Each structure stands twice: as C-alpha cells, then as structure tokens.
C-alpha cells in the first residue's frame, strides 16, 4: 500500500513538474504562440498510450505462448490505460487544431488511424465482457489484441509515409525536422512524466484484475460447497 502511494505521489509530482516546464520553461513557438504548448501534453500522452498498448501486446503474446493468467491481467490493464491516453489524444488534438487549422477534425491518415486504434481497443474491452469463461476470454481477446496492435505502427508511420493535414514529425522525423533544444528537453521530460503516470495506472489496474481473479476463485469455492 505504501509503495503504491509513493509511486502515485512520484507520478503526480512529475506530471506537475512537466506541466510547469511546458508553460514556464519551454520557449513560445514563433508562429503558433501559446496554443503550441498543448504539444507537450498531447504528444506525451500519445507516446504513453502507444507504450501501454505495447504492454497489452506483450501480455497477449505471452498469454498465447505460456497460458498464464498474469499475462492476461497485464494485457487488459495495458489496453484500458492505453485507451484512456488515446482518448486524451483524441480530445486535445482537435482543441489544438481548431484555432490552428480552422477545423476540429479531418479524415487524414494520422487522425483516422488514431480513431481506428481507439475503436479497436474499445472492441477489445467489449469482447472481454461477452465471454464468461476466463481461459477462453483470455485466449480470444489475446488473439484480437495482437491484431489490434498492428494499427500502432500505422499510426506512428502515418505522418512519415503519407502527406497529412496533421503536422509532420518533429521527433524522429529525419532531415529538416527538429525542435529547439529547450523545447526538446521539456518534451522528453513530459514524455517521461507521462510514462511514469501511465505505469502507475497500469499497476493499479493490474492489482484490480488480480483481486478480481481472487474473488472469482473464492466465489467458485463457495458455490462448490
């Protein structure tokens, strides 16, 4: 319990420090001005969401291989947390886009693939609610989860492979792209803070899933008596 409180406290302090750095340390972008500061929250959330989905993918793969319930707990935790982060991405993106593009949304490759990613993981979680038997639920959702993760590299590559309304990459974007060094430092700090926060949420969700399995076991024991 104490470890969880310390972990949560560190995560909260880091995200507060990251928000402070985004507003007061990062320099103001010349053309967009203040609205560009959403970038530190939006992109850091997107990267953390990708990592959470990667945890889900690893859990799915390992479950199919080892058939150990703990991997299924990791997978569902990663999926739920990744979905929360992707929801934030899909909300903060249009809030940035409206004053900059003059529109809230457009169906370009990046935005569409991100929306599809969100739908895939909503489907993953819905699928789990439809199957009662734990092993069957874990196996079928693992197979679906492996398929769903295929969209993550597509989202990442969309602005690199195709011409999109969404801005071109400023990190890992190749020649001609890049960020001011202070902006880059603030961005990486924000990404680190959001990753710690994401891992805290995954740990909390994992503990819940573990407890649920224990409750199901006790309920079966009670029913058998």
């Amino acid at each position, binding site marked *: 319990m104490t470890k969880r409180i310390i972990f949560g406290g560190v995560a909260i302090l880091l995200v507060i420090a990251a*928000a402070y750095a985004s507003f007061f340390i990062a320099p103001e972008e010349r053309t967009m*001005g*203040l*609205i560009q*500061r*959403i970038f530190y*929250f*939006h992109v850091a*959330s997107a990267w953390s969401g990708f990592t959470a989905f990667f945890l889900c993918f690893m859990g799915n793969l390992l479950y199919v291989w080892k058939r150990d319930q703990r991997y299924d707990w990791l997978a569902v935790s990663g999926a739920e*947390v990744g979905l*929360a982060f992707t*929801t*934030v991405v899909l*909300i*903060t993106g249009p*809030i*940035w886009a*409206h*004053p900059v593009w003059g529109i809230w949304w457009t169906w370009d490759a990046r935005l569409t693939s991100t929306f599809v990613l969100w739908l895939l993981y909503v489907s993953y979680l819905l699928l789990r609610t439809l199957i009662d038997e734990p092993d069957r639920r874990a196996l079928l959702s693992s197979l679906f989860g492996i398929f769903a993760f295929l969209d993550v590299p597509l989202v990442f590559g969309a602005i690199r492979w195709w011409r999109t309304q969404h801005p071109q990459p400023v990190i890992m974007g190749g020649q001609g792209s890049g960020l001011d060094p202070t902006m880059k430092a603030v961005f990486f700090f924000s990404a680190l803070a959001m990753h710690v*926060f994401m891992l805290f*949420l995954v740990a*909390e*969700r994992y*503990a*819940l899933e573990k*407890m*649920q399995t*224990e*409750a199901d076991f*006790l*309920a079966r*024991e*009670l029913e058998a*008596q």
Partner: protein
Amino acid sequence: MKNLDSVFAAYVIGWGVFFVFYLTIAKRTSNLRAELDRLKNSLPRAK
C-alpha cells in the same frame, strides 16, 4: 494571451479524463475489496 482558453480547456479536459479513469479504478477496487471480505467471511461458515 491568444488561445489561452483552448490551452486551458485541453489541459483541464485531458486531466479530467485521467482523473475520472483513476476514480473508476479506485471505485472498482473498493467494491471488490468489500466483496472479497464478504466471500472470505462466508467461506468458513459454509464449511
């Protein structure tokens, strides 16, 4: 301070989503803990 309202909205709504998500985990954990206690108390009596 052009677009301050949009930046404010993005941060408030974004953190609102995380806060609500965390609350749902905390609520489910609390309900489950109560359920576990109930089950643990019922088991010896069933024996």
